[in-house]
C-alpha cells in the first residue's frame, strides 16, 4: 500500500500560495497566518533556509546580530541590533538568533543562520510543504495556476520568494572554462594556484579574502572600480570584513584589482589566459591563471512568469514591480525576499535600501502582506488614534528607535493621516515613495536618511490634502537620539498648519 503523504497543503485551490522557504517566504507566510489569511506554502527544498542552506561559501554572514543591545531582546527596537532574526508579533518568538550564536563573532555563521530560520518555523508552527517544485505558471480566468511537481495550485494571489539564486555567467567567449562562485571548492584545493576572479562585488572579495592564505596570486577584475561600504555610507560596496585583499593590493602583496572588461578566456594546456581591456583605455592585458572563478552574481529563477505578463529587467532579471512589490505588469502577482531589491524606492543620494538582505526584506514582507490583506482580502488593519499632543513625540521616537526606518533608510516610513474628522490615525509602516507620490488626505510620514556626507538624520514629509508631499530634513544628533528640543520645535511648527492648530 502506498504511504500516505503527511505533508501539508496538497495541490488544490487556495486564496494565496507562497513559493520558497528562505527568509522572505517564511516571513510572508508568518504574517499571512497572523492575519488569518489561508494560504499554501510550498518549497522545492527539503528544509527551510533558502540560500542560507549553502551560502555564504566561507560560512560567515555579512549581517550582524549584536547580542547585547540597549533594550531587552523582545523589544522590537532590538531588531536594529539583530539583522538576522525574523519578525514576530509574539515577544517570545522574537530575536531567536542571538541564543544560537557561539559568541565568536557578531556575524552569525551560516549553520547558525540556518538553525535560526528552522527554529522560527518550528516555534511559530508554520507548516510548509517541502520537496514541491514550482515548475510553470498559467492563468485560469481570474486565478493563477502554479504547476508543481506535486500537482496544480490555484490561487488569487501568488507570492514568489524564490531568491536571486540562479548563478549568472556572462556569455563572453570562454566563460565555460570558469567555475561559478557556487562551485567554489574547499579552500585548500587552491593552494599555490594563480586565481583570476571575475567580479568585484562582495562575493568576489569574499572568495579573495578566504583564499588569501592559499593562493599564489589573486587577480580580481571587472569594468567598474571596487566601491567600499565605508565610502558609500551604505551596504552597497565591499564590506569591511572583505577589505583585506584591497590592502594587499595597495601593499603589493600578490593581489591585483583591475578595472577591465573581460574579452575572452582562452585555455592554454592546464591553465587559462584571460584577455582584458582596461576600462579607461590602453592596450589589452593578458593574465595567465590556473583557475578562473566567475563571481558574477545571480539572477531570479522566475521560471515562465514572463509568459503570464511579468516583465523583468536588469542583469539579475528582477521583476518590474510597484512600490508594494506587486508585478507592475501582471497585477496580483507579488514578490518577497531578496527579489524586493527590484523596487528602488527613493534611493536618495544613490544609496540603495537593504531589500536584498534579511534585515530589510523582513520589513518589506510584512508591509507587502498588510497591503495584500487589505487590497485583496478585505482585511482592515487597525489604525490606532493618536492624540495631537503625542504626535511630535511619536514621530521623533519612531525615527530614533524604529528598526524598520533604520534598516530601510529613505525607503520605509511611518505615516499618520491628519484628517480633521477622523483625528490623527497611525497608518503604520509604508513605502516612502508610495506616500510622497500618492494623492490623499493630509498626512505626515517620517523616515531616517543618510546623505552623501554620511550624516544620519530624520526626514519628514508633510502632505496637505490633495497636494504633493513637502520634504523637510530634521537635524542629526551625535548619539542618534533625534528627540531634541530643536527637532520638537521644528516638527511642531510644521504640523501646526496642517492640523489646524491641533498640534501645538
Amino acid at each position: 500500500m502506498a504511504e500516505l503523504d503527511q505533508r501539508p497543503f496538497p495541490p488544490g485551490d487556495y486564496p494565496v500560495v507562497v513559493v520558497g522557504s528562505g527568509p522572505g517566504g517564511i516571513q510572508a507566510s508568518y504574517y499571512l497566518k497572523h492575519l488569518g489569511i489561508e494560504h499554501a506554502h510550498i518549497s522545492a527544498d527539503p528544509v527551510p533556509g533558502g540560500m542560507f542552506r549553502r551560502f555564504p561559501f566561507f560560512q560567515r554572514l555579512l549581517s550582524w546580530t549584536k547580542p547585547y543591545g540597549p533594550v531587552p531582546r523582545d523589544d522590537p527596537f532590538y531588531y536594529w541590533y539583530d539583522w538576522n532574526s525574523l519578525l514576530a508579533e509574539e515577544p517570545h518568538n522574537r530575536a531567536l538568533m542571538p541564543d544560537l550564536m557561539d559568541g565568536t563573532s557578531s556575524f552569525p555563521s551560516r549553520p547558525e543562520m540556518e538553525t535560526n530560520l528552522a527554529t522560527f518555523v518550528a516555534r511559530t508552527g508554520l507548516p510548509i510543504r517541502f520537496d514541491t517544485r514550482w515548475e510553470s505558471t498559467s492563468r485560469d480566468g481570474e486565478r493563477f495556476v502554479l504547476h508543481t511537481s506535486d500537482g496544480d495550485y490555484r490561487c488569487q494571489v501568488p507570492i514568489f520568494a524564490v531568491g536571486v539564486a540562479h548563478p549568472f555567467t556572462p556569455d563572453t567567449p570562454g566563460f565555460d572554462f570558469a567555475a561559478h562562485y557556487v562551485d567554489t571548492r574547499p579552500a585548500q584545493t587552491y593552494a599555490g594556484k594563480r586565481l583570476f576572479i571575475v567580479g568585484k562585488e562582495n562575493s568576489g572579495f569574499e572568495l579573495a579574502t578566504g583564499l588569501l592564505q592559499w593562493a599564489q596570486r589573486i587577480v580580481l577584475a571587472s569594468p567598474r572600480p571596487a566601491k567600499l561600504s565605508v565610502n558609500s555610507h551604505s551596504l552597497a560596496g565591499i564590506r569591511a570584513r572583505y577589505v583585506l585583499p584591497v590592502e594587499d593590493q595597495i601593499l603589493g602583496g600578490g593581489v591585483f584589482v583591475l578595472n577591465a572588461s573581460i574579452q575572452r578566456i582562452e585555455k592554454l594546456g592546464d591553465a587559462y589566459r584571460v584577455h582584458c581591456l582596461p576600462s579607461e583605455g590602453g592596450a589589452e592585458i593578458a593574465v595567465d591563471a590556473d583557475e578562473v572563478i566567475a563571481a558574477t552574481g545571480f539572477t531570479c529563477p522566475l521560471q515562465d512568469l514572463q509568459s503570464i505578463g511579468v516583465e523583468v529587467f536588469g542583469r539579475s532579471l528582477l521583476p518590474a514591480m510597484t512600490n508594494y512589490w506587486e508585478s507592475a505588469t501582471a497585477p496580483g502577482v507579488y514578490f518577497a525576499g531578496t527579489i524586493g531589491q527590484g523596487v528602488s524606492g527613493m534611493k536618495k543620494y544613490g544609496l540603495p535600501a537593504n531589500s536584498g538582505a534579511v534585515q530589510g526584506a523582513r520589513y518589506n514582507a510584512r508591509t507587502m502582506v498588510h497591503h495584500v490583506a487589505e487590497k485583496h482580502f478585505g482585511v482592515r488593519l487597525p489604525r490606532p488614534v493618536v492624540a495631537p499632543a503625542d504626535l511630535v513625540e511619536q514621530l521623533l521616537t519612531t525615527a530614533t528607535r524604529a528598526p524598520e526606518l533604520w534598516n530601510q533608510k529613505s525607503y520605509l516610513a511611518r505615516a499618520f493621516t491628519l484628517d480633521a474628522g477622523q483625528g490623527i490615525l497611525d497608518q503604520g509602516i509604508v513605502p516612502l515613495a508610495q506616500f510622497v507620490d500618492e494623492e490623499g488626505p493630509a498626512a505626515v510620514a517620517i523616515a531616517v536618511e543618510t546623505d552623501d556626507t554620511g550624516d544620519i538624520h530624520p526626514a519628514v514629509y508633510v502632505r496637505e490634502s490633495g497636494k504633493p508631499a513637502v520634504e523637510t530634513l530634521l537635524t542629526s544628533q551625535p548619539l542618534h537620539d533625534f528627540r531634541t528640543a530643536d527637532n520638537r520645535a521644528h516638527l511642531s511648527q510644521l504640523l501646526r498648519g496642517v492640523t489646524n492648530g491641533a498640534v501645538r
Partner: protein
Amino acid sequence: MAMNQQELVDTLSGLALFADLSRPQVEAVAHKMAEESYPTGQRILRQGFTGTGFYVIVDGEVAVKIDGTEISRLGKGDFFGEMSILLGEPPGADITTTRQLRVLHLGGSELEGFLRDYPPVMLRMLKAVALRLRNANRWRS
C-alpha cells in the same frame, strides 16, 4: 523587456550621450550605473526634494512637470537630474513616468567624477543642455 549585458552595452552605444565612448568604456558605464525599473505614474525626480540622482532613459517615457503643469516629455536616450546635481539644488521639476520606465541611475555625488572620467559624455551633455536652453528661450519669446 530584459536585456543581457551585451545587449545593454549595444543599446547604450547607440545613445547620443555615450556615442563617443569606446566599447570597454561603455561596458564600464553599464557597470557603474544601476539599471532600475519604475511603474507608470511614479515620480522619479521630485520637485524640492534633496538627494536626487542622474538618470538616462533606456526604455519608456517620462513627463516633466513644474508645479503640476507638464512642460515636456523625455524618451529613450534622454537624461535628467543633472541640473539639480550640478547646481547643488533640489530639482525644480517633477519627472513622472507616463509608462513603464527603464533607466540607468547614478547617485548624485558620483556624477561629477563620472563626467571627469568621460569628457566626451560631458561635452555631449553640454550640447544637449544648450539645446534645451535654446528651445526654452524660443518657447518664452
